[in-house]
Structure formats: C-alpha cells, structure tokens
C-alpha cells in the first residue's frame, strides 16, 4: 500500500503537463453535496462510463451519509451543545469521519482503476467541494520532458490553458502497467 501510494505520488510528479476535467456539483436536490453523474466527453477515450458513474455515485452516497440529518446528528448536536461545543476541540465530528472514508476510497480508486488508465482524481474537499477534478496524465517518455515544447495534448482535451504546472519532475519512474 505504501509503495503504491509512493508510485502515485511519482505519477503526479512525472505528469509534466496534464489536462484537467471537472465534474461539477448537482444542485437538483438543494444544497446537499452531490456531483453530476453525466459522463464528460473528454474522458471517453480513457475510461469506461460504468466505472466513472460508479465512482461518482459512491462518492455521492458518502456525502449523503455525511450530511444525513437523523438520530446520529441530533445526538452529536445535543451533546456538543451541552458542552458549549468544546467537545469538538477533542472529538472528531461525524462528517470528518466520513471525509476520511472518502479520501481512502479515492486513493483506492486511483490506485486500482484510474492510475492504470492515466487518470487521477482529486478529492473534492481540496477544491472547496465544488468539483471532482480528473487529472489526465499525458504519457511522456523522455526524462527531460520539462524542457522544450509541451507534449501534444490529446485531441479531446480542452484548450491547453488548463495546465497543471505544479508537477515537479524529480526522476522518471515507470509505473507498473503504464506505457
């Protein structure tokens, strides 16, 4: 698990230029956190639709569970109120617990499903819960891929203004199953 995580980090680092695709929020049920399950056309070449939909639906389920107003949230609220919310300084809230589950799920999905296809998902919490961003890794072969012109973007990608220039190349790492 640790080595796979390290490999994913290297993958992010070695993705010198990548395009991003954003899956927006679905507000049809109000302000609850829910993402659109519409399959972006830019991902068609990289991943199958059922896998994508499955990921987004599972994330939506997690968020629904986190924001559920029921017995657990009442109890948590009342207990916290009785202690003047001091207890939140020591205790993790129910929402934070689900967020941890979500990040574990995203990491697992990245390792098993997305990284082998040259994609990486970013946890929505890092984007203000506004979007799920899919990072399309451009497969670059040369070690000095940072210099010179950027690698040609895939045809279906949005204009190259959407660039993640934050990727730092330390060393080229070959990721298993990655051409």
């Amino acid at each position, binding site marked *: 698990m640790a080595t796979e995580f390290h490999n*994913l*980090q290297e993958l*992010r*680092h070695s993705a010198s230029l990548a395009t*991003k695709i*954003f899956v927006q*929020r679905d*507000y*049809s*049920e*109000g*302000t609850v956190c829910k993402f659109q399950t519409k399959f972006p056309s830019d991902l068609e070449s990289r991943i199958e639709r059922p896998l994508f939909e499955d990921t987004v639906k599972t994330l939506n389920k997690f968020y629904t569970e986190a*924001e*559920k*107003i029921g017995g657990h*949230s*009442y109890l*948590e*609220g*009342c207990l*916290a*109120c009785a202690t*003047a*919310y001091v207890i*939140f300084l020591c205790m993790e*809230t*129910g*929402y*934070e617990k689900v*967020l941890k589950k979500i*990040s*574990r799920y*995203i*990491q697992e999905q*990245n390792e098993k499903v997305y990284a082998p296809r040259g994609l*990486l998902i*970013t*946890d929505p*919490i*890092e*984007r*203000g*819960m*506004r979007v799920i*961003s899919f*990072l399309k890794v451009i497969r670059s072969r040369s070690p000095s891929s*940072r210099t010179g012109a950027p690698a040609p973007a895939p045809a279906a990608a*949005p*204009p*190259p*203004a*959407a*660039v*993640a*220039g*934050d*990727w*730092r*190349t*330390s060393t080229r790492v070959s990721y298993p199953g990655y051409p």
Partner: protein
Amino acid sequence: MSAVMVAKKVTRKWEKLPGKNTFCCDGRVMMARQKGVFYLTLFLIVGTCALFFAFECPYLAINLSPAIPVVAVVLFLFVVAMLLRTSFSDPGVLPRALPEEATFIEMEIEAANGNVPAGQRPPPRIRNVQINSQIVKLKYCYTCKIFRPPRASHCSICDNCVERFDHHCPWVGNCVGKRNYRYFYLFTLSLSLLTIFIFSFAIVHVVMRSVDSGFVVVCFFTLWSVVGLTGFHTYLISLNQTTNEDIKGSWSGKNRIQNPYSHRNIMKNCCEVLCGPAYPSVLDRRGLMLERSLHPANPTAAAAQVGKNNNAEPQPTERKAPCPPDEHAPDDANPNVTASTEDVSYNEKSPSPNQETLPPPQDPSPSLPEDNTDAALDKEKVH
C-alpha cells in the same frame, strides 16, 4: 557557480489566502478585518455581568438563593463560548477557483453564449438549476471566478463567497454563514436569556432594597434589541431562510418562487438548521506550504512555493511572463533559481485530514508558480 544559501521557511496556507480576513493563533482563528465592534460586544457582556456579580449577586445569593449566581455564571460562560465560536470560526468560505477551474468555467460560458457581436455586451453570467421543481438562478462571482452555489453570496467586507450566507455581523466581527449560523443563533438566544435573567433579578433587587435603578434601564434597552434579534432569527429558521434572502425578498412576493429549501414543516426546518451535521471547513488554513528563500541572489524572493510532499524541482524556464493582475502571485518570484542543483526533498507532515490521500495537485492559493506558467502559455498562444 556561486554557492546558494537556502533557508527553509515554513508557511501555512492561511498566510496566502485571498480575501480580507485576519487570522490569529497561526491560522486557528479567522475573523473579519474590523474587530472594533467585536471588542465592544465582549466588553459590554463582560462588563454588565461583572457589575451584576459584584453588586447584585451577593445580596441575592444570601437573601434569595445561591442558585442565582450559579445559573448566571453558567449562562455567562455559554454566551461567551458561543460568541467566540461564532467569531473565530470559518463561516463557510468558498475558496476561489484555481486557474484551471476558472478557465474551464469560462470555456463553458463562452460555449453557452455563442458568438457575441462586437460592441455588444455579453449576456449576464447566470446558470439555471432546478431545485425541487423550482428554477433557481446561480450567479457568477467575478472575484472568486465561480458560479456561486445556491444560497451562497459574496461578502464585500470579507471579500469571500460564503455558503448559505446570512449576513456580515460587525458585533461578532465575522460573517454568519453555513458553518457558524447555529452558534450565532445560540449566542443570541443565550444572550437573551442572560439579559432577561439579569434584568429580572436587577428589578427584584431594586424592589427589595430600593436602590438606584440605572442598571435596570440599561438592561431594558439591551433586552429589547437582543430579544428582538433572537425572535427574528427564530422566524427565519422556522422558514429555512437566511437574512440575506429575507432582505432581498427572494421568496416573497407574488411573482417570486417559493422557497425551495423549506420542508414546509417548522420542526423539520429547525432540525435541519440547528441539528444538522457540523460541516467541515474547506479552507485548509493550517496546511503547510513551503517557501525557499535564496541568498544572496534575491533575499526577499519567494523562489518556489511547493505543495506539501513535493520534491525540489527545476523552475520552468518560461516563467518570465508577468502575472495577470487578478492573480495574487508574488512579484518577487525569482526566475533565476538554480534549484536543479539542489537535492532537497521535503516530507513535511500536513496536519490536515487529507494526509492519506494523494497530495493535491495544487494548493488552494493564488500565488503558485503555475499561475505564471498558465499566463506564460497563454501569452505564447496569443503571440
């Protein structure tokens, strides 16, 4: 080759957050810039209670009941705790869109607008969504470069978009939004109870001892304003409305739509607002950013801003373009960095809960080198 001294300076993300907030305790406390009225609130509450404890409680405790000061102390502590919670917490600020996201949204807008003839103003940036079979318009925020979620609004005082924006309260020195509305409500409610409590026992004291009633008069005026405010917010909660919506008349009037967020049931509305889950802050205020300042080439340079868990890297040579004016990139970004000669690897632990995930591709900060890279690439495209 000159020897370059590198000093590692750890910066936390709150130091680079845009907006007009002030942060204290290394990012743990987040408030608005103007805090004068907040100090006044604190002074009034503490001062009034101090007078009550000093002059009225001894007599009342002996002649009526020792429970009176005990209840007063409990209420006072609860009021102060709620006030501090409201004032110091993140109201639900939405981070600004990073360049890629902003560009993506712009593309979508342009695609939706089609070709606008030259000289004509482009149509307003509005997105329609259907919520509970009502059409709600989402407005575009030019400062944050996002389409605001429903019920969010941009606070001009704090210069942030805030989710479920209620109002900016100078008395608490912060915005009141999704994350701290219940603390605000409990503050006003408990303050009303405390004021009524003090007021009643001050009257009792006056009656029992025929002393000066100046204190009572002060309490009387405070009482009506605080109780009135509590009543107003109770009304809003029962209808699941925000102050902002109420003032704008979003859901009232004949031709307006009904409130799509209301459950049409007072209890359900109250439960949602007061007993809902405690939402987390999406601003990772205490996350780490790393700055390396180089000496002596440029002592004030913020040479590289590397996200956590990233290694040292060579700076892209195309980063010479000036930053676009709305990006808050540092002007002293040093293009002469020979960081490739360094072999420093950073492995800082982030205190954020996202430690187990992959490191974020970008930090939610506007002053990243990639902003410059984007600008540079844009320039290359233009030329």
